[in-house]
């Protein structure tokens, strides 16, 4: 039979295994070569991009003042000039936070007719890089880690908000420390990379108030009093501190917050800034001193619930539960304001729990406050996006969220009356009246340190796998990557 006309083969054809294998290997090599090659071309592309992008931005900026004659972007938006437009926004908060955020912008959306489409993702940090590199940047993105934003500013992917925001208004509405923290180095000089919206305070020590008072303890005003209280509680039969730093891939971050708080209390703010920038190495005696202060409490098995070993294996959110046993099994917990969402349900703020300010160690450095917050950055320059950005600089943009609890407004025009409880109002006051305000250092450091060796090195030290000097060297090595 002649199979020529059939269109069918006699047998299904077979490939030699050697041929197949070698092709697969070649392909694997090609892919490896491509991925490193594309990495190279990507970086050149991102270097070129700002050069082409900035002239546009600056021409628009020069155009803008003419349009400014009839009011700032926000005023124009309120006048209804941008009705029907859409602004996309991307950020890390999901679930209840997302509901509260959407509640807080609802009035603005109704008034202006601008639709702010918020998209929240648990994988914000990873996704935002893909989105921006893939040319699919949202109009506004919400960075809880300014260090990450700094990378995009460096490659020119972020628009300078000071082009259209009134500098005097900003100065009037934010503590200068906040504005300094938003200023970042771009390809053509420093720019204001975004506006601060929601924030949280970190220098807080939580305690079960009722039981604490009943036991006759008093809130310590100095570090020595704090240590004395710790010792007193230990003598009474309980470990004073509830500490847990387990947090999945981010294990160790609560420990870095402690170190930062102690750093602010044992050295000058200037030294702190240098430390964050990597100019003051971790191996410096100043930093080592902070770790030693931490060790005084953390490494004493009488002071920590479950002892040193349990610190690294206890989830940070679960670590608070012993404080609310009856009677409490632990008494003190240093954590940011958000920790209340991990407290068992049904507790009353101000009665069942309260906080005190982590006392200063050396009076020479005043009462510094460690904060964290979300920096809203802008990627696409359209008038309605400008209006939304300006809206985010007002206290009004976060009012209902403050009222529902859980966040601190960094703006000065946010009234202290908005806070739902005294416990939160005092946090607002603490931020407003702080002599020194510094941002969570690990969020400002380069990712290889702040979200890498700092977490890991501290965890290794606490768990006892390396000694202090070894841990400090390990952390410092992250700056070389």
């Amino acid at each position, binding site marked *: 039979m002649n199979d020529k006309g059939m*269109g069918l*083969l006699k047998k299904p054809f077979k490939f030699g295994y050697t041929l197949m294998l070698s092709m697969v290997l070649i392909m694997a090599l090609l892919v490896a070569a491509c991925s490193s090659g594309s990495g190279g071309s990507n970086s050149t592309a991102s270097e070129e991009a700002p050069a082409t992008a900035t002239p546009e931005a600056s021409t628009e900026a020069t155009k803008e003042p003419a349009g400014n004659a009839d009011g700032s972007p926000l005023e124009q938006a309120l006048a209804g000039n941008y009705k029907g437009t859409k602004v996309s926004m991307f950020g890390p908060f999901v679930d209840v936070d997302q*509901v509260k955020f959407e509640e807080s912008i609802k009035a603005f959306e109704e008034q202006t007719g601008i639709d702010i489409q918020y998209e929240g993702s648990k994988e914000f940090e990873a996704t935002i890089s*893909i989105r921006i590199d893939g040319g699919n940047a949202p109009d506004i993105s919400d960075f809880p880690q300014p260090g990450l934003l700094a990378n995009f500013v460096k490659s020119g992917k972020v628009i300078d908000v000071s082009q259209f925001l009134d500098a005097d208004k900003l100065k009037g509405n934010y503590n200068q420390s906040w504005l300094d923290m938003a200023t970042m180095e771009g390809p053509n000089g420093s720019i204001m990379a975004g506006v601060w919206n929601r924030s949280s305070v970190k220098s807080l020590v939580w305690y079960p108030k009722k039981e604490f008072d009943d036991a006759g303890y008093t809130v310590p005003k100095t570090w020595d009093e704090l240590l004395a209280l710790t010792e007193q509680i230990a003598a009474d039969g309980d470990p004073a501190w509830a500490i847990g730093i387990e947090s999945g891939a981010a294990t160790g971050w609560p420990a870095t917050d402690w170190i930062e708080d102690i750093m602010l209390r044992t050295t000058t703010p200037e030294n702190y800034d240098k430390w964050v920038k990597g100019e003051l190495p971790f191996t410096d005696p100043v930093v080592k001193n902070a770790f030693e202060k931490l060790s005084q409490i953390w490494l004493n098995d009488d002071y920590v619930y479950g002892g040193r070993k349990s610190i690294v294996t206890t989830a940070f959110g679960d670590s608070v539960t012993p404080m609310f046993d009856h009677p409490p099994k632990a008494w003190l917990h240093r954590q940011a304001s958000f920790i209340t*969402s991990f407290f068992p349900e049904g507790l009353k703020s101000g009665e069942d729990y309260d906080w005190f300010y982590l006392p200063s160690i050396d009076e020479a450095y005043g009462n510094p406050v460690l904060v964290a917050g979300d920096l809203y950055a802008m990627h696409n320059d359209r008038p309605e996006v400008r209006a939304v950005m300006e809206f985010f600089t007002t206290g009004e943009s976060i009012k209902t969220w403050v009222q529902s609890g859980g966040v601190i407004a960094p703006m000065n025009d946010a009234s202290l009356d908005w806070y739902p409880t005294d416990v939160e109002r005092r946090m607002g006051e603490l931020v407003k009246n702080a002599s020194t305000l510094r941002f969570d250092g690990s969020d400002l450091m380069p990712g290889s340190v702040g979200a890498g060796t700092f977490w890991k090195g501290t965890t290794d030290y606490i768990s006892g796998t390396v000694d202090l000097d070894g841990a400090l060297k390990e952390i410092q090595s992250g700056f070389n990557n």
Partner: protein
Amino acid sequence: MKRTRKKTMSKTIVNVVLAFICLIWLIPTVGLLVSSFRPAVDILQTGWWTVFPHRDYVTQSTITLPKDTDLRQPIEVNGEVFDDDQLRSGVTAQDGSRLIWENRRARTIQVQQPDWKVNTNFTLENYNGVLTGKSFEIMQADGTIKAQKGEGLSKAFLNTMVVTIPSTIIPILIATFAAYAFAWLRFPLRRSMFVAVIMMLVVPLQVALIPILKDYTALGLNGSYLGIWIAHTGFGLPLTIYFMYTFISQLPKDLFESAFMDGASNFTIFTRLILPLSVPAIASIGIFQFLWVWNDYLVSLVFIGSQPDVQVMSMRIAAMVGSKGSDWHLLTAAAFVSMLMPLTVFFALQKYFVRGLLGGSVKG
């Protein structure tokens, strides 16, 4: 007689070993299932296995020591002397009972005896939270509390179906055509094209994410179902083509020859012969592709995003634990809800699955 006994013996051994392996395999899933019915507070305190009857210490009585007992000195209890560490971890006294601190502060010690214990605190709260959405209590300006229902899984479940079904059917359809052509038709460059397809198997899909995203941005396909269907089809094709090829190339050639003699066109051969004959293979690769797309997180994260109207279940579940992960206990229930569909598909196609795996290995 002897031989049959030997046979039954070895069969029993095989069965016992298999049952044992199955048990080990199942333990994590069973643990997850049990945990999904337990209240969050309980999960923190005791393991899921405590729901089964187990020996544990049960407190018989408590001893109160003098308030001023120094904990850093040896402590005397009922005429015996222990130190603090022993009492913390529990220590056996001479009469066989165990002594352990109830409250160090109040200086009370529990005297315990071992006894049987079962933990029967179960709840449907986790499933309720997952299926109907969590309820948030939001304090209003005037101090009243507004309860608001969060998003449940139902919308995300539908979205996932909309993503998964076409993403399973399209690549398999294309792959079956392609496999037939590669196996039985002659056309130029067939060999090199097939090798190219095979080579795609070793390309990790992650390298393609950003380039594809750039193209999608230009085409406006981001966040649309069409975009993710195409993406999943593309990522799934190499394996599906290869799988279908190995199966179809094993079909007996005589069948096609006689069909061809009777005047059947290629299309008729394909629809009348190839398709019915390759049902087992289609079913088993269908299960693979379905599971892969159903459980996928990365591709949906990049191409479809987390807007609520298109969000798929894997992302919705991740979001459910909250920004700070405080609602982790919902994950257990959510995992089971998301498992329902793949399990249904698997059991529906299971008999083909086994046949498909053997496809081509046994000739006869």
